[in-house]
């Protein structure tokens, strides 16, 4: 299915770029705006989701079973789970690689803008699922992706396989588990009739914990 990029979080982009909160000069600000507009224009975001009943950590109707403490914790009260995958499409990759040959600074900005754009799409998808479920009196857990906590990054590959993303939205994974097109996300959200207090965004569950650039600077990546 198609989806549009609406809001891209500029503070997020600046964080990706290592900006330390000083004021921005006008020229850079304009460049950032231009990049956001360009991403909106040239990307072709697509997404796909499916809900599966859970039997412990196994997804019914598939051959997929999750393993790991953090996913177990996340899904402990969930009866079902929503898997989704989304991608900005291959043109974004091509443009980043072209800019990295002709205008590296622009490539770096563009890369960060694209990351923020795919994050904003995830938020949108998450929100639409939340609305749908809350009408039925159900709650969502936080959104979790392979690589969070101790959930192995290789699960991206399994999620892509179960959702048939190659055929449905053009999202593939390489032998080493890299998603291509690059600006893509696979995600897991538990559906429960109990509201959860668990937050996956705590730093202790993060793969970067211990050597995080944000924490070194006394900040956190999810700070608004």
């Amino acid at each position, binding site marked *: 299915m198609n989806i549009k990029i609406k809001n891209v979080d500029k503070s997020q982009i600046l964080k990706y770029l*290592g900006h330390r909160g000083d004021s921005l000069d006008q020229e850079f600000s304009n460049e950032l705006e231009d990049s956001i507009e360009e991403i909106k224009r040239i990307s072709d975001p697509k997404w796909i989701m499916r809900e599966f009943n859970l039997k412990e950590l196994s997804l019914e109707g598939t051959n997929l079973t999750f393993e790991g403490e953090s996913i177990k914790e996340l899904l402990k009260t969930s009866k079902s789970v929503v898997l989704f995958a989304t991608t900005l499409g*291959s043109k974004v990759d091509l443009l980043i690689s*072209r800019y990295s*040959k002709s205008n590296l*600074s622009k490539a770096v900005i563009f890369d960060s803008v694209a990351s923020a754009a795919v994050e904003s799409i995830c938020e949108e998808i998450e929100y639409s699922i939340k609305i749908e479920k809350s009408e039925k009196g159900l709650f969502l857990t936080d959104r979790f992706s392979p690589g969070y906590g101790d959930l192995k990054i290789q699960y991206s590959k399994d999620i892509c396989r179960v959702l*048939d993303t190659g055929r449905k939205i053009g999202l593939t994974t*390489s032998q080493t588990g890299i998603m291509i097109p690059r600006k893509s996300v696979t995600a897991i959200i538990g559906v429960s009739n109990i509201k959860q207090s668990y937050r996956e965004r705590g730093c202790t569950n993060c793969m970067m914990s211990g050597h995080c650039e944000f924490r070194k600077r006394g900040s956190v990546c999810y700070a608004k």
Partner: protein
Amino acid sequence: MLNDYGFVMLDGAMGTMLTEAGLKAGEKPEFLNIEAPEKVIDVHKKYIEAGSNIIYSNSFGVSSRKLIGERYTTEEVIRAAVKNAKIARGDREVRIALGLGSLGEMMEPMGTLTFEETYELYKEQVLIGADEGVDLVVIETITDLYELKAAILAVKENTRLPIITTMSFEDNGRTFSGCLPESFAITATGLGVSALGVNCSLGPDEIYPIIERVSKVTNLPLVVKANAGLPNFQGEYTMKSQEFAKSMAKIADLGVQYLGGCCGTRPEYIVELKKELEDRELKSRRVVKVSAVCSPVKYLELKGFIGVGEKINPTGKPYLKESLAKGNMDPIIREAISQSEGYCEILDVNVGTPEVDEVKTMREAVKTIQSVVDLPLQIDSSNLVAIESGLRVYNGKPVVNSVTGEFDKMEEFFPIIKKYGAAFIGLTLDENGISDNPIGRYRVAERIVKTAIEYGIPKEDIIIDCLALTVSAKEDSAMVAMETIDLVKERLGVKTILGVSNISFGLPGRDLINNSFLLMAIARGLDMGIINPTSPSTIDALRAYELLWGKDKGAEKYISSHKDNVQEEKPFENKDISVDYALSKGMEKELVDLTKALLREKSELEIIDSYLIPALDKVGISYEKGEIFLPQLIKSASTAQAAFEILKESIAKKGSENISKGDIILATVKGDIHDIGKNIVKVILENYGYNVIDLGKDVAIEKIVEVAKERNIRLIGLSALMTTTLKNMEDTINEIKKYDSQVKIMVGGAVLTGEYAKRIGADYYVSDASADVEIAKNIFGE
């Protein structure tokens, strides 16, 4: 060939039927060939009973790369799949197609699968299928034209089986990778498939406009296998069989001969479709004659005037020669990008110089250029082997430049041009050299056209070079070219081209002569010109031509192009700007001009050591202090690079020794494709005078060791961005150290830490964009 008359019924979905029979999401439907053959045979039988004349074996996703770690091999699955289809067929008049799908992994340049690997993976499958006795091969649900090309070549070079191929398009009329229906159609037609069309992704109503576009550019039989409409929110297909059949019948009315179903269709869909077609006759289609070339995303009909960029050519460019000899493609990439922003729609690619292995370099150049620019390419060489190596890896339909009218040359070149389905330029010269009258040149053109057609090359793919020779040697040479254009166009009806700038060779004020000649020739009907597409005066002349020929509505292009030029012509005032300032602010043009001005008084080395490096140091310190941040640092570094290019060119021209302070290899490790970080380090190191040998991304361990040996390297930088590829980084380090424990290794990437770097045996950890310079200074000295 397929030799079918009238409609031919294909089958419907296999996966849909097997899912209904209990297949789970994420499981391989192909494994049922072995584990539950009765289920697969049953589906085939139902389709045959529904009326399918051709059934596809259940073997779409079983390349050996996809089956790594699985319980069956490619050979086991394909053999079982074809056997099941044969059992289902019994002795009925039904043909069995070896069903091949996408490999499911992205190819280069975006992914890590190379063209050559892709070819091998298809070849393996095709050989097994052919051995099992299939009647034809189907290549379907492809979204990357490059993958399709590898697959077609694998079938054609290893069997004599006919090929049906279908790609999958989205509702925006492009595949996921951006390929256009027209690009697909002319490329596959040129490569010699038997029938082509569209399958999957969309229902018949949405496929209609796409197959209609395909039908306008190919004369081959057409194929459609549509889904049962579009899926709903839950991913279910809801179009009913009768509705499907009615909608498919409209597609049949376009003259589409091969019809069937894809996702969501069942045997009853084929029954209904057959019923719907009973009273219809297959419509004969209008014969199409189009001259066109393409990349996946650019389809270019050769009409109006087409500019061909001439600048990727080392002749007379010492710096380009030197770079090619070192295997450094960066200058070529820059030429490609800048030309693509100028007045041109095709890029000529010539890498012929005595210092390089032209065959290998052509392959690399084509791959590299098409990864950053989407214009169709023109493969330019007099060496047929080099031409073939470029043609093979080109993604789309290219032009070959060029073939002369000599019989032995035509005999050699035409089979290759035919095989790869390229257009070509025929030079109006032969065993007797170049005729100095138009009739003589026309005769050669006539012979080229006649011979090419005998080799099966369509007339639409022939472009005749009427030859521009310098007017300084012979005063009528422009007029001879003009009259040759007249004759070739009138009597042969093929396209014409000229290498425009040859006309002014040896004369002053060449631009004026070139542009006047170009406009004269266009007026005579010249179709294509090999030109300098970034020359402002040529762009001006061509914009004027567009305006005067009524091709520029409201003079918009002319006016906007003219505005730009006025700005550029402003004299440069450099009095107030210092090197420091220009560099820190990323003012490229100013810095380049300053550098050129300095070159009049100072040596290249002096400029580097006394101006550029100190300015870069200041920027580096600001970055470390947090006064500027990453994009600004890179901008300054890239700006400095433009100045270094000027200095390098100046050095190359003098032929004096280079200024490198040391050679450093940089590579993103095997399995990883993140390369922005590596590219940043490269620019910064180059700015400090180091010669960076950039091996790119996803680099094999052996390759790094090989280059390290060959070039006697003392410092290697490795990058990895995934936790999953850190292992490859460790393996790479081990192998390098095994080869020579004295080679120093620096590593960087988001998931790394200093501690981890030490643990995997690296000598240095690159913590940020400027840390690498300190490391290099450490090793090579200040």
